[in-house]
């Protein structure tokens, strides 16, 4: 059983125990347009909340993806590096970016649930 949370910067987190899977939202991919390049953090990197963790680029512009919470990068999704268009076709699924070991569960308190995120993007 996982819980999905959202940031105001349009990232989603699937929380499963002490591991969070992070991606960008469908709303974010629509705003970006056609994604042509994704750069992910190295496995083992210790991310601090709000630091730039990944980069997603459309034809026109580059955007940073921020670490929504602090923790160590456990795994990255090479499929989205090899096929950046996955971000447009399946942002909330196959196009996950990285998995992070949650360092401080209290940081989850500042994130939104789906209803709050929907209101945020309305």
């Amino acid at each position, binding site marked *: 059983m996982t819980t999905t949370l959202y940031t105001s910067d349009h990232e989603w987190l699937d929380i499963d125990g002490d591991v969070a899977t992070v991606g960008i939202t469908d709303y974010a991919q629509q705003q970006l*347009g*056609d994604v*042509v*390049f994704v750069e992910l953090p190295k496995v083992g990197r210790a991310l601090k909340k709000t630091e730039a963790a990944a980069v997603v*680029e459309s*034809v*026109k512009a580059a955007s940073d993806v921020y670490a929504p919470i602090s923790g160590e990068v456990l795994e990255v999704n090479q499929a989205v590096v090899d096929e950046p268009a996955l971000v447009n076709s399946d942002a909330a699924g196959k196009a996950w970016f990285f998995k992070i070991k949650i360092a401080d569960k209290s940081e989850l308190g500042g994130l939104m649930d789906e209803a709050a995120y929907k209101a945020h993007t309305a």
Partner: protein
Amino acid sequence: MLACDDKNSLRRTPLYGLHVSLGGKMVPFAGYEMPVQYPAGVLKEHLHTRSSAGLFDVSHMGQIALRSKSGTVEDAARALERLVPQDIVALAPGRQRYAQFTNADGGILDDLMVANFGNHLFLVVNAACKAEDEAHLRAHLTEGCIIDSLTERALIALQGPKAEAVLAKLCAEAPSMKFMDAGPRKVDGIDCFVSRSGYTGEDGYEISVPAADAERLAKALLANSEVLPIGLGARDSLRLEAGLCLYGHDIDTATTPVEAALEWSVQKSRRTGGARAGGFPGAQKILAHFDQGASRRRVGLRAEGRAPVREGALLFADATTTEAVGTVTSGGFGPSLNAPVAMGYVPTAQSALGTKLFAEVRGQRLPLTVAAMPFVKNTYKR
């Protein structure tokens, strides 16, 4: 470049309503609300233009009629030659050519198209510069010329391999026009100015149409299944792949036409030893650049990886030196090449094709190679 982007003061082209009805995502650009993309998206719009045909609203650009008070186009051409390093006098009736307004330092105030319409010249200038360009023309040419800003006209570009067949349905003369032919033509019964030219590297046309008829003409063109509306996003990636300069980025008041690798646009008659050598602003510096070479040059750049190298990225001779040798002036992802493309300025010694350079992107040095432009072969009907 992007002067006057305050939302309240933004202007709209005669096709604004059409853009909105087509789902265009409107953004501020050069003082106008313009579509950056439509629902198809930048990638599909770009590829569709290269494989079929795309319709672009470029009505934000300035259209100016330049007439001599004497009534002859030769006198208007001689007058304009005082402001541009191009040969306008030899530009035949019905023909168009690429030009630059230069300043006293040899820099570029704007780039433009100049067409000879038989009894006067027709100029198309960049949106962000059009007020300054008009003032510049008035300041220098008022004595002998009448400068008429054609503000009641829209400008539509139809670009791509299917453009000829599509326009032929509305303008029987379109197929017989050659690249850079230009002049008044009837299109669907409307009095237009048509040129066979564009900003994508593809064959195609640019059509100046009275504002009141613009939406009807655009809709008639879009009624063809081959034609999709194309926004500014794809316009930029198309011109970048075609190696064409964007004013305010790849060329500006600090770059001479020689530094910008635009020597081809300056005819021999205006160079040292030519029949009308010099006589334009900055001639001393520009001709010295022709004769002795410039110290830097605009080049094309291809990356080895997939990370786009964008405007402002610093260029280095190797992976470790701290002193930059140049800067990227335009860069992004080329959808037709499925790879990053860029252009920028480097020292002339490092401008030869195949030269290895590095761009700094997010703290990393990415390898680049100086590459020939256009990146995508152009398909002009010469």
